Structure formats: C-alpha cells, structure tokens
C-alpha cells in the first residue's frame, strides 16, 4: 500500500474557504432515504475518505455531490470549482467501436479543453500506448487508468473517486492509489474517495466521512479511525478492521 504524506490542509482552518460545504444532506433511492443529516465542510487539498458497510449510501452520496441524482439539503461547492469523476464501474459493450483516445477527445471537445490538457492527463495516467485501443478490450486496470485520465483532463480541483479498485488485483490497485495520491500531492487537488479499504484510508485520508445505519459521522482521520467509531458505523465488532488499524497505528 502506498504510504502518503499527510495532506497539508489543516483540519479546522477557518481562514481558508472550504472547497465544499454540505448541510443537512439527505440522499436516497426509489423514494427511500438511505442516509440523512450529512454535515461537513472540506478544506482545499484535503483527502476525504467515505467509508461504511455495503448499502450505506456511499455511492449515492458521491452521485448527489456531483448532482447526478436529486437530494435534499445543501451542497455548496466553491464558486468555479471544477470536478472530475471516476465512477466505480462502467458497463461497456465490448463491441462498442470507441477508442480510448476518442473518448478523451470527446470530453475535450465538449469542455473545449486544449489538446495539451488531454495530453498531460494521458501522460499522467500512462495511457499513451493504449489510446488506439478500443475501450472494450482494455484490462480492468487499463480501463481504470483511462477513467482517471478522463477525470484528470480539464485539470479539476476536486476528484471524486468511487471505489476505484473494486475489481482490480492488488498490484494494479496499488498503482491506481499511487496515481491518485500523486494527483493530490503534485496537482494540489482535493480528493473525495469512496473506499472499503481501511488500511488505505488510514494511509491517505486527512478526513473521514462514515456512513452507516442511515447516519453520518465526520471528522479527521485520527478522530474517526478508532475502533469505537468504526464499530458503531459497521454495527458489529470489527475484528478484521480493528486488527488492521492496530497494525498500522
């Protein structure tokens, strides 16, 4: 696992304008509320991990932050904040006649991005040799790198990433996280990452948003990644996670 330096952003710096303020957010699906009373604010260059058990509403929360699904409450991005999104999974027809390069250029044309911007994102993600390949023929890791390059083109201030390694082997997973951490460190980006991997969260996140049982808890990584909080979030004693954390503490 990558061991990132802790983000420079202070946890409760009131002089810096937050990049995101969320108040009384309530998200759900098919008319059913999944999580309510989500309140937090995020300073620039922070690394927020969203954790919780399956079905806790992590992906829904991310989609509501992006405005992809309706929600109640307030979501206020800093004016002009440019967002990049890496979805958990994209179901693509293997026969879709679309090259990776064509996908990136479609975004560039829609957002009127300069060619140099796309090239920088491609270089960043090491996607160069794959640009001529059809998206349906890319391996899971290559596909994920393409999605990251897609999100990074346009130089977003905030990158929202939904479980980027759900279907990847450990080696590729490590590479993807290194890429994300490098983006945060070198590009000064704010990262919001949904993840199941508490070891990774401990190593990279400055802030943690825990979702579970319809409730939400927010704090710094030090405040949230303790057995008492995690057991409340996951509603059962966390043998694996507690052990995992003790090992890293």
């Amino acid at each position, binding site marked *: 696992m990558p061991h990132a330096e802790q983000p420079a952003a202070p946890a409760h710096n009131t002089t810096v304008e937050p990049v995101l303020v969320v108040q009384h957010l309530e998200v759900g699906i098919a008319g059913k509320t999944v999580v309510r009373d989500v309140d937090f604010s995020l300073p620039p260059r922070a690394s927020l991990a969203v954790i919780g058990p399956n079905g806790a509403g992590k992906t829904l929360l991310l989609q509501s932050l992006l405005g992809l699904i309706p929600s109640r409450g307030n979501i206020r991005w800093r004016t002009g904040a440019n967002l990049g999104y890496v979805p958990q999974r*994209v179901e693509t027809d293997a026969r879709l*006649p679309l*090259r990776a390069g*064509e996908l990136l250029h479609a975004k560039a044309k*829609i957002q009127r991005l300069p060619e140099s911007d796309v090239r920088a994102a491609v270089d960043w993600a090491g996607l160069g040799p794959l640009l001529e390949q059809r998206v349906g023929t890319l391996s899971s890791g290559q596909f994920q790198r393409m999605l990251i390059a*897609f999100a990074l083109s346009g130089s977003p201030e905030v990158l929202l990433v939904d479980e980027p390694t759900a279907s990847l082997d450990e080696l590729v997973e490590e590479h993807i996280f290194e890429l994300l951490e490098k983006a945060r460190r070198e590009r000064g980006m704010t990262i919001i990452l949904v993840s199941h991997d508490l070891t990774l969260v401990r190593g990279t996140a400055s802030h943690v948003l825990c979702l579970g049982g319809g409730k939400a808890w927010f704090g710094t990584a030090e405040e949230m990644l303790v057995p008492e909080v995690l057991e409340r979030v996951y509603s059962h004693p966390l043998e694996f996670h507690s052990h995992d954390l003790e090992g890293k503490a």
Partner: protein
Amino acid sequence: MSLNASQAYEFGAAVLVAVAAGLVGGFALLKRMSLASDVLSHLALPGIGIALVFQLNPVLGAASTLLVGTVLVWGLEKKTGLATEGVIGVVFAASLAIGALITPKEALEEALFGQLQPLTLMGFLAASSAAIAITTVLLLRKDSLVLALFSPGLASSTGVNVSRVNLEFLLLFSFTILVCLKFLGALLAGALLMIPAATGQRLATGMKSFLQFSVLTSIVSVVAGLMIASRMPRLPSSGPVIVLAAAATFILVTVFAPKRA
C-alpha cells in the same frame, strides 16, 4: 448513364439522405434502437393514411404521428427504463394496423414501400435541406452522444444533459425516417438506418471509422438500389431494391472482411 433533371434530383437528394441515414443509423445501432426504428417508421403510416383521407400532404401527416411517437418512446424510456420493449412492440403492431385500415388501398403500397416517381426541384430542395440539417446537428452533437453512449453518469458529470441529448437524438432519428419515407416507405425506412450501420460495425476500428463506413455503405446501397430500380421499369418502388443492396453489402462484408475485435 445520362440522367435527366428529375433523376439527377433523385440521386442528389438520395446521396444526402444516405449520409444522414448512415450517421443517425450508426448511433441508433449503438443505442440498440433497431426495434425503435421499426416502431417509429411504422408510426408514419397512420399519419399518411389520415392525411390522405383528409386530402392533406402525406408528409405532414407522417411528420405529426412520428413526432407524437418519438415523444412517446422518449417518455417511456425515461419513465419506465427497461419496460419499454413490450410497449414498443404494442405501438409497432397497433400503428401498422391503424395505418393499414385508414390508408386508401391504392396509396398503401406506396406508403409501405416508397415510390419511384420523379423528384421535383421542390422535393429535391426539401429532402436535401432536411438531410443537410440532420447531418449538421448530428455532427455537432456527436461528442455528447459518444459520452452518453459510453456512460450516462460520466457524461452528466462532464456537463452533458443526457436526457436532452437522448430526446434530440430521437427527434433527429424520426426526422431521418421521415426523409427516408419517400425512397423506402414506412416498412423499409428503418432498414436504411440499421443495415449500413451494422456493416460499418463489422469494419470499424473506432468511432470515426465506424461512422465513415456506415455512411459509405449507406451511399453505396442507395445509389446502387436507385440505379438498379431505374433499369427495371416494372418495379413499383425502389425501396426493396435499396434495402436488398444494403443487405448484400452487409453479407459481402461479413463473409470477406477481416474480423475485428
């Protein structure tokens, strides 16, 4: 082969319509709209029938029912998601039945299979302008359509209004069907959109080449069909010959072209 003025109009308009059909059909195929193409083309039939009964321009009648049908399909797709297929099947059959009942017998064959009458200058200008408009709008929307095809969520996060893009595409699609009706009729109009696109997919290495091959196959099918039909004066309509030319191209490509990944 020398062409008189009306034949030149017919060929000129047909080529422009083929370009529009190749592009629109390409995206329609990728959006898995083959069934919808049949439904929409058949929706023109009751419109033609009603227009003939009330002695109005059949194109206006076809346009009216196509517009209603397009909005209906879009609304169903948006509201019910996957449940549209069954409803589409019902709309398809009902439209054909209503059209067959209403349309006067002597006009039914022409409405179903297209006509082989000379194209006037006005007809040429109308069909050509429509085809150029469709092609232009589609090329302007191409990137949004590509993103929406790849992932609606990702497209939305990029600032694409996916619902609006889908409606715009359906309207373009219906407009293309309307323009194709003259050459192919309600029963076969959908085929000119789907078969060249299917051929293009066999040859394509990427989106650009897919659309290029789809357009090329569409032009070849229409021109070959019209040329063959013009040499067979006993044929009531050029539509079936154009579709057969498209099908023959697909078979040739399937048999002889190298298989793509």
